[in-house]
């Protein structure tokens, strides 16, 4: 499975969620599928996407938050899984793309998932109530929509090929995105407008 195809398979649902990504290929591919004001790309502070997602999920329980992470990023902040499990926000799905390498520096530096470390099993052992490993777009789609419906903390590991986009450039400065995202969350806090459709996930 290619990560971009995996993202495409769940894009209709993602586009209605608050999405916080790690850096590298995932944000570039998500951006290529269509940027939304509820998407926030955490460039550079590797490992902290899940913590940012937790901060949002705890602060705004009415919002559905999705963290898009990678194996390399998560391994830099493994303790985050235990903190997520400890507070167990029902409105957070942690989606981890596992390609077994630090792709943005080439394919030669493999991560520990290449030698058997199982991130979904680590999440389970940390106490995350809903976990799974997906190997096809259909498996991911089912697991992801199932997790949305279940309304409980989930960690889904999607095994993907070590292949990135042609370019990591996205035409949205990180500061522009930061202010846009903050404004979007502020507007979502306002009382719903008459035209808002019932049942939309935000």
């Amino acid at each position, binding site marked *: 499975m290619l990560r971009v195809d995996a993202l495409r398979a769940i894009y209709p649902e993602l586009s209605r969620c608050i999405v*916080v990504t790690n850096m590298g290929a995932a944000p570039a591919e998500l951006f290529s599928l269509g940027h939304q004001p509820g998407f*926030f790309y*955490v*460039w*550079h*502070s*590797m*490992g*902290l*996407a*899940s*913590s*940012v*997602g*937790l*901060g*949002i*999920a*705890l*602060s*705004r329980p009415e*919002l559905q938050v999705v963290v898009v992470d990678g194996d390399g990023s998560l391994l830099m*902040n493994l*303790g*985050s899984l*235990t*903190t997520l499990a*400890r*507070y167990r926000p029902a409105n957070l799905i942690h989606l981890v793309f596992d390609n077994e390498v630090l792709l943005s520096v080439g394919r030669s530096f493999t991560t520990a998932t290449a030698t058997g470390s199982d991130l979904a099993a680590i999440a389970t052992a940390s106490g995350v109530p809903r976990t799974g490993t997906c190997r096809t777009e259909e498996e991911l789609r089912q697991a992801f929509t199932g997790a949305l419906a279940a309304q409980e903390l989930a960690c889904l590991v999607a095994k993907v090929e070590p292949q990135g986009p042609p370019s990591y450039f996205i035409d949205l400065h*990180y*500061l522009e995105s*930061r202010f846009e*995202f*903050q404004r979007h*969350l*502020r507007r979502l*806090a306002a009382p719903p407008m008459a035209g808002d459709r019932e049942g939309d996930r935000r």
Partner: protein
Amino acid sequence: MPVSALNSQVVYDALKANGIRLLSVLPETWLVHLVSLAEEDPEMVLVRLAKEEEGVGISAGAYLAGVKSAMLMQNHGLLASINGIVSLAQLYRIPLLMLVSQRGGFGEEHPWQTEGGGVTEHVLDALRIQYMTLDEPGHVATRVRQAMALAEASLRPVALLLCRGLMWED
């Protein structure tokens, strides 16, 4: 335990007066009363961390989501958080209020605290993080308010050093 319960309450009251609703914490001896106060307060979300750097991410998320937060940690936790502070809080212009217990200063009896005590202020200077000390209860309310104001105006991290004179009853 000679950690000052009275002055811990003064610090906690100042945080509350400034609208802090989420505290991420990795406790140490000087912070035990502050953690208990947060735990007993139904208006406060207390997040117990595995490592301090997580707190930078949690506070950034809370801020973007419209909730005022602070980090509570030892100075060694500040040292452990530096990449998050630089690459998230500073890069993304997040007003991060950090309350840092300043272990390893004059009066410190534990040898393992002393190296961190000697470098904390130099590290804050190197990071261009403005900070003030809290060393007696009389100025706590004012300085917490001023720290919050500066963080929000500058969109940068600021630090308050919780010093021995405030936190410990020698």
